[in-house]
């Protein structure tokens, strides 16, 4: 609330409604104590402050983010219809969301470590340093929860988390929404299911 509005509220005191006299100085102190974060449209002041804090925080480092970029593009590559996960901005999304949902921090950091260690065991190098074919050699062992070797179960959990975050990040991006051909979020007139679709499913509005 703006100071002007506080003072308007305070105006009530002169009308006999206030028990205590408002202390204008106290209000000014309260306001100047706040970190001045601008409130963007659609956010409350509290949210603006929380988001500014989160954006200032650094959690994943460059190596971790580089690894995420490579992995996410293995999970969702470019094809004839749309670009790849990283082209849609998935890396930045994951960078933010693990800070916003701290329960992802350790599984993500630890999972990436697990991957580098597995890569080291197999090929003597970190995941980002091995060849594309070598990467697939590892991924094939952790991408299928139903058939993966038991001793790689932690890798499977990590890959499942990566798949979920990558898909969510990709399909909620501008590119992913266009890929899915979602047609809404715009003013329109709903007139019911199109006729050809009704026909396709053998349904009608008269039944």
């Amino acid at each position, binding site marked *: 609330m703006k100071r002007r509005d506080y003072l308007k509220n305070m105006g009530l005191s002169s009308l006999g409604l206030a028990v205590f006299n408002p202390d204008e100085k106290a209000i000014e102190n*309260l306001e100047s104590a706040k970190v001045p974060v601008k409130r963007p449209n659609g956010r409350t002041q509290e949210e603006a402050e929380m988001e500014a804090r989160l954006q200032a925080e650094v959690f994943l480092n460059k190596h971790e983010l580089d690894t995420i970029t490579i992995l996410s593009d*293995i999970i969702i590559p470019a094809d004839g219809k749309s670009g790849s996960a990283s082209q849609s901005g998935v890396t930045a999304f994951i960078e933010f969301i693990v800070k*916003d949902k701290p329960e992802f921090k350790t599984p993500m950091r630890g999972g990436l470590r697990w991957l580098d260690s597995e890569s080291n065991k197999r090929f003597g190098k970190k995941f980002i340093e091995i060849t594309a074919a070598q990467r697939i050699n590892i991924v094939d062992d952790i991408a*299928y929860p139903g058939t993966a070797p038991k001793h790689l179960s932690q890798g499977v959990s990590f890959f499942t988390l990566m798949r979920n975050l990558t898909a969510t990040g990709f399909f909620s991006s501008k590119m992913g929404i266009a890929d899915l051909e979602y047609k809404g*979020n715009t003013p329109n007139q709903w007139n019911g299911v199109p006729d050809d679709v009704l026909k396709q499913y053998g349904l009608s509005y008269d039944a």
Partner: protein
Amino acid sequence: MINSSIYIQSQQEVFDVVIVGSGAGGGMAAHTLTKAGAKVCVLEAGQPFDPADPKDMTQLKWPYESLRRGASSSLRNFGDFDAAYGGWDIEGEPYTRKDGTKFDWFRSRMVGGRTNHWGRISLRFGPDDFKRKSIDGLGDDWPIGYDDVKPYYDKVDKMIGVFGTNEGLRNNPDGFFLPPPKPRLHELMIKKANKALGIPTYPSRMSMLTKPINNERGQCFYCGQCNRGCSAYADFSSSSVLIKPAAATGNLTMLPFAMAREVLTDPATGLATGVSYVHTGTMQEYTVKGKIVVLAASAGETARLLLNSKSSRFPNGLANSSGVVGKYLNDSTGASRSAIIPSLFNRKRYNEDGVGGMHIYTPWWLDNAKLDFPRGYHIEYGGGMGMPNYGFGWGIEGLNGRENFTRDGLKKAAGGYGATLKEDYRRFYGSYVSFAGRGEPVVREDNYCEIDPNVVDKYGIPVLRFNYKWSDYEVKQAKHMQETFEEIIHAMGGEPMGKKPGADSNYGLADPGRIIHEVGTARMGDNKNTSVLNSNCQAHDVKNLFVADAAPFVSQGDKNATWTILALSLRTSEYIIDQRKKGNL
């Protein structure tokens, strides 16, 4: 547009009426009373909110305009664009539970309260809902019946606008309905399946304007986002539809950031004289005086205010000579299930956002005399090609390994990566449906809220402590819901998701409070030893004190509560006007 300047305009010292809370109940009282010429002051703990003000507006934003892609946060529990400031836990405003029982309490701290983002399912109670004890011997009857409330439901329908259809159902009464939107594809499929099963399906009844009803509010343009608040004011929220026009009368003093602490009384007469409050921004203490006090801070908070308003004359709290304040708290039962419908794989894309919610629903259709539980539930349906956001595609490894779920009908290993995985997400998009049962519990005296003897909030106000348990009745009802959902899913040719909730999880029965229909904490009745309010929601003990939220409810009904809160608040407000005219107040 509501801006803060309208909040301060009255100059009077003693208001005709002081109302606490600006949600469904408080908004309706403020609207009715200011229109009748009363000078009204509304105390609202939360901040201003106007869905048409770019500062507050989230309608038509894309998921990528949110850092968390629309995920919920500690400050927006139902998603990053949802119009609820507040949530299950509010910093500095705790509540507690007794003896390991459960109760979750959702509070919104904003002008309009929880009506800014509610589901807009707008159901009247029927004649049976007021007289359950006469039917099954459990709980209590209301001191009023459907005929007493019907004229007010009618007025609310016309004033606020609700779509639906008159079906001539005895316990789901007809009303004054705007045209309903046509069912979506999955809704037609549900309807067809239900027909084969003998489960009735009707157009839903929700408060969005499918036709304009006045010049102040626009018409729905089918964005499917009512929970974000409508910038055209085409959906009902108390802030846009009640408080705004109330302010336009010039009779309303709307004080946001005003957290009521206690109702003040005159020690000599025992009458209410006003309300004390804390300004949440400055922490300064004020009082506001009124000839009449109306509590509408939500059922839980109204009990808290009464119990905290202690004096030598009212040692157990105000209006509590019966000791009933806080007791008979109840929330709707709820259980849900979702499914995937393979015939919808790779469906044709088109815009089916529709209104923000379901276009069809199923009211309670069975006879409890033939079942092993006493009360009914209605079914709410979800599904369709909604806007993808955070959570999209999550858990695909549980789906894409199933028989017949691949493009070519072959089985492949679950999970995976790469081009074929990308294909899977596209194929499954828009083929989910969900089912939610919302039912009536049996009200119990030993489900209650009280003042925690040890805990205060950051304003120094003693907080609520809840004690709530479901009984076998509710568990059996949830079991029935689960069986019904599976029947429908199978009749649609669908596959249920996850494991069927069993006895170990009370058949998926949601914890008390989770359905956010808390009612009953200051119930009405003819006997002042067993009720707090009379049938006009006037305190038995304090004649100038009224309650206008869901606290007066004697039972929950198998309907959502809000349309009844609105009708009762209107009825109580008209009673206040009448009594003032007659000089009784």
